[in-house]
């Protein structure tokens, strides 16, 4: 047992690990430039879309259960009929859900693990699927949320972020308006079991494999935060 030469051993181990890194093929500059330009365009479009959707869904009201509870009975069917789009269209629903979810203190608590919000709380949402129940006028939406606490202004950055799946239940009112009536998360203590119980099998598999693509992306959220005072 010899750790007297600790400094040298650390340096040598890090150097060896660094040398073993595989450098992928491809042009990282091309990818960076293309992504940066794409994000700028999408950030502009995304903000405009969100504002338009918010204006169109003035009746939105959120009633969230306590975070960390298992799914309600509306989401226990492992293979419910899936709807490719919501009554208001996925784009409008996506923006409306995002707007409400990121302004609710219980969502903030869930993502920040009870921490204190210090900046702007922004979310990206991947709407993974929806089920429709005509008689009750309830729709269940399966989403992946990536939310964070962002500093604002020119040097905006994310300071804390969390990614969680959620089951969002909405009620259709009329004229395409929606009311969010429930949001449920899997328990951290029983994550995989709750995901498999709460989500249809195909979506649960996507969540467990992290086959998700929340929008806006983190970089777009940073852009959005940078436009805030």
């Amino acid at each position, binding site marked *: *047992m*010899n*750790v007297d030469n*600790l*400094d040298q*051993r*650390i*340096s*040598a*181990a*890090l*150097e*060896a*690990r*660094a*040398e*073993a*890194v*595989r*450098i*992928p093929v491809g*042009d*990282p*500059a*091309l*990818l*960076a*430039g293309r*992504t*940066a330009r794409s*994000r*700028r365009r999408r950030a502009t479009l995304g903000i405009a879309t969100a504002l338009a959707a918010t204006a169109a869904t003035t009746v939105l009201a959120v009633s969230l259960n306590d975070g960390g509870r298992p799914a309600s009975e509306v989401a226990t069917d492992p293979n419910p009929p899936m709807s490719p789009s919501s009554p208001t269209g996925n784009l409008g629903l996506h923006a409306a859900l995002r707007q409400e979810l990121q302004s609710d203190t219980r969502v903030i608590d869930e993502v920040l693990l009870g921490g204190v919000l210090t900046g702007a709380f922004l979310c990206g949402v991947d709407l993974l699927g929806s089920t429709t129940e005509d008689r009750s006028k309830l729709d269940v939406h399966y989403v992946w949320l*990536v939310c*964070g606490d962002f500093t604002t202004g020119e040097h905006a*950055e*994310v*300071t*804390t*972020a*969390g*990614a*969680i799946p959620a089951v969002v239940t909405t009620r259709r009112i009329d004229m395409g308006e929606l009311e969010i009536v429930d949001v449920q998360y899997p328990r*951290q203590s029983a*994550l*995989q079991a709750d995901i498999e119980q709460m989500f249809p099998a195909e979506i649960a598999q996507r*969540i*467990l*494999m*992290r086959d998700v693509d929340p929008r806006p992306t*983190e*970089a777009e959220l*940073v852009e959005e935060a940078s436009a805030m005072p």
Partner: protein
Amino acid sequence: MGGDAADFIRSEYPTALRRAVLLVGDQRAAEALVQEAMVRLWAAWRRQPPDNPGAYLRTVTTNLAISGWRRRRLREVPFEMGPEPSVDDSAAELGEHDVVWRAVRALPPRQRAVIVLRYYEGLSEPEICAVLGMAPGTVRSQASKARDHLRSTLNNEEGAFDERR
């Protein structure tokens, strides 16, 4: 603008990726982290080329690794399924350095960042303070805790190895 930024990114990418792997301990996560850092560098370059783009990239990468990206990965750990390229895959290649690397990898992100900046990047204490935005006392404290933890871990691991022999 694009030419200078592109040239810099191409030349700096291998260095940035190696640094990121040491910071996050996982090849795939490191690639995503470096891509994010490169995109931010590109955006910053568009506004005004950084005086020292290498330092800018190091700072962004390191702070992404220990702040938002760290927390996100912690929350997402339970979702990891199936085999992923990781440092464990190349454990055999690391040979005698494996025990030390595993111990470094197990450090909390801020302590690991201090160790990487000090022992791999060869930065001085003031330079580490500038990268991490920490006071000198905090950097010293983090480095001390990290070294104590590494020493303890290596003592335990190598003690157990001696006993098995």
